[in-house]
């Protein structure tokens, strides 16, 4: 019991020193917040969620079919802009030729030029193109229903198209009910990334400095053993990651209405992940003798893990091979668990495999860190 108290005392002291450092607030709050705002806004307003796709229409048709066809294209997600001539600037454009009506009435096949700018939104272009095909399918169905009669009389009266097959979309039961915001994606990703960066840099450098300045050696004059010093250092760095995650989640909740799904389980994921990173920081701090090397390694590892692990971009757009390689990243398992909790309202059983892998990693890194942990250079 007294042994535990001693370990906790040292770990708590480390945590207090860290929290009283102004730089801690830059790393744990200011900079991650900048990241969250930037990536949250970019996700929100980017190609992933255009509300309305614009379609410029050059309607040169001299008959009535052009307007009829445009009626079929209209939909809440499509903004039709009718112009008289092809403009220099547009995102997507369709041209109805002067003989559009005449061509239909003469049952002459024709292809409408649909132009899309290379640099415009791919998703908006896909939505418009799909809508065009749907409009054509509706119109052709009505024509087939009309039969081989005189098409000049079609618009005076014909059987209307009925949507017999309808489409309903939803999310899986007992998951989300509204589309998650950009911040729901950016806050967990940024939190994971900065726990890695902060714990490895700050935790690693302080382990190295304590060793170089003889602080660790002096601690052995107290009733602490080498093993207890190691455990205290590990615990202190673990607390560092937890405090950082708590700060970001609280700020995310207050300012961005962050929804984590189950908060206790999300914190459990962060706790296990932070423990693995704490062990890694002690390991790096024990091996390295230079601060710059620790910073370099931390930035390198944090970026590799964050990039591969899905902290920066949705994993759906990542090639399958990269997704497989991503499994080597601890961030992948943490993000996977947080996604299950947030987007699938998952429970403990759902995240158990992720927790298991992170816990195993924490144990392995902890054992390795304990072996290389040095009191003196």
């Amino acid at each position, binding site marked *: 019991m007294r042994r535990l108290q001693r370990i906790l005392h040292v770990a708590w002291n480390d945590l207090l020193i860290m929290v009283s450092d102004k730089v801690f607030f830059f790393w744990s709050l200011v900079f991650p917040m900048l990241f969250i705002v930037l990536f949250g806004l970019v996700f929100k307003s980017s190609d992933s969620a255009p509300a309305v796709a614009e379609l410029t229409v050059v309607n040169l048709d001299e008959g009535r079919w052009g307007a009829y066809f445009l009626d079929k294209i209209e939909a809440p997600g499509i903004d039709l802009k009718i112009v008289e001539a092809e403009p220099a600037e547009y995102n997507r454009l369709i041209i109805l030729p002067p003989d559009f009506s005449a061509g239909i009435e003469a049952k002459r*096949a024709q*292809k*409408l030029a649909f132009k899309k700018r290379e640099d415009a939104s791919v998703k908006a272009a896909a939505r418009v193109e799909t809508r065009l095909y749907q409009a054509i399918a509706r119109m*052709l169905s009505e024509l087939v229903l009309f039969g081989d009669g005189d098409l000049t009389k079609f618009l005076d009266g014909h059987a209307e198209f009925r949507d017999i097959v309808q489409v309903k979309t939803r999310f899986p039961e007992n998951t989300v009910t509204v589309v998650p915001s950009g911040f729901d994606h950016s806050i967990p990703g940024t939190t994971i990334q900065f726990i890695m960066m902060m714990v490895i840099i700050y935790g690693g450098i302080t382990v190295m400095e304590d060793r170089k300045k003889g602080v660790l050696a002096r601690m052995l004059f107290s009733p602490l053993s080498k093993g207890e010093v190691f455990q205290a250092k590990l615990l202190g760095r673990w607390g560092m990651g937890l405090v950082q995650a708590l700060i970001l989640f609280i700020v995310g909740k207050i300012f961005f209405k962050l929804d984590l799904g189950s908060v206790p389980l999300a914190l459990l994921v962060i706790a296990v992940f932070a423990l693995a990173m704490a062990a890694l920081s002690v390991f790096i701090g024990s091996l390295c003798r230079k601060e710059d090397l620790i910073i*370099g390694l931390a930035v390198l590892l944090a970026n590799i893990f964050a990039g591969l692990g899905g902290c920066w971009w949705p994993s*759906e757009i990542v090639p399958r091979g990269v997704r497989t390689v991503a499994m080597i990243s601890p961030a992948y398992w943490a993000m*996977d668990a947080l996604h299950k909790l947030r987007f699938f309202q998952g429970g403990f059983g759902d995240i158990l495999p992720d927790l298991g892998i992170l816990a195993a990693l924490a144990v392995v890194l902890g054992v390795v860190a304990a072996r290389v942990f040095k009191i003196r250079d």
Partner: protein
Amino acid sequence: MRRLLLILGNDIRRHLKSPMAVVIFLAIPLFMTGLIGIIFAPGEEDSTLPRIAVVLVDHDQSIASKLLMGMFDADQLKKMFEVTVTDEAEGRRRMTKGRATAMIIVPEKFTVDLLDAKTTTLTVVKNPAEQFLPDVVEEFVNTIAVMLSGAIQAFSEEARGIRAMLDQPVESFPWDKLGPELGKAQKKVVAAQAYLNPLLVGIEAEETKPASAKPKFTRTDLFSIMLPGMAIMFLLFIVQTLMRDIISDREDGKLRRMMTTPLRPMELIGARLVGGWAMGLIVLLVLVAAGTLIFRAYWGNLGSFLILGAAASFWTAAFFGLLHALVRNRNQSGAIGAPIILVFSLFGGSMMNPEAMPKAFKAIGIATPNRWFIDGAKLVREGHFPLVPLAVLVGSGVLLAALAVPALRRKTSV
């Protein structure tokens, strides 16, 4: 001058003896560029999207649902979708594991309702963890729904006939009366052919670009755009590491010993600033060489780019010279230096394409060397001389150096 060069040479030799930190800082931008390039660069094929994994749950198990599944077997759709037929529980499991983008549920009696021309509903269950691909599946199913609705309306009588066949045992169905019905259907098909074969109205899609646009964006373009941003970010890190000698010499007592020699403070300051500048240039040269060899990145006129790089290195050396004249110790230098570099990089466009950034971020970015270097590199790539970025970097660099030198003189007085 000779003494300045001696210190400079000595510093470079010392850093080359333990180059690990510099090597890591050089590796990071190359790795980051490679990773982002693999993920975001346009591929060789037309499709910019990965194959979309879709789960199909067939509660109907009849003609229409089989027809629906058959549609996914078309060559073009096979390239786009990877369909797995399974049950809802497995579909959900796959979505949870990130192995399915959406689940299409075909309801019970789908075929019967369709043949009766009764409204029926296909359900698309979207993976909530994905932002982009589920919408593609939704739009695709919407199109299928329109096509099926159209087909069933056009051939409603025939559909009723098929419905009757489904309801009756094979032996009681009046096969001999099918002749005239098939004849009617044939007439409809022939009439429909006038509209459907070839399609009376089709779409000819083409990608266009404005008159001022560049040729098609390639992977090399992406690397060429990204590398300058990454280069300036890690140039800042590396030069900061070297300039920290100003503080460590003082803390370790080396400065006191050096000042007992005939060395003048200005020579020492000059050596440190020139050292930072030279190291920055070397780093840039290595990154240019590695970027060209590994990523086939293009830089435009190499002379112009190196002049810009020299200006950026000078700015960096002057900035960290001033910073190290102002901070009290090594810890403070490390604590302040890295955050400043990251803020510069975030606002200046090293971490994200400046054009995609919110306006406020862009405005703040003007105050960073990253932004001017990235803008300058873009101008060089486009075949222009980066006059304005160069003027800003040199001008502000001279100002920083002018502030740094007297401050460093105070710092070197023992």
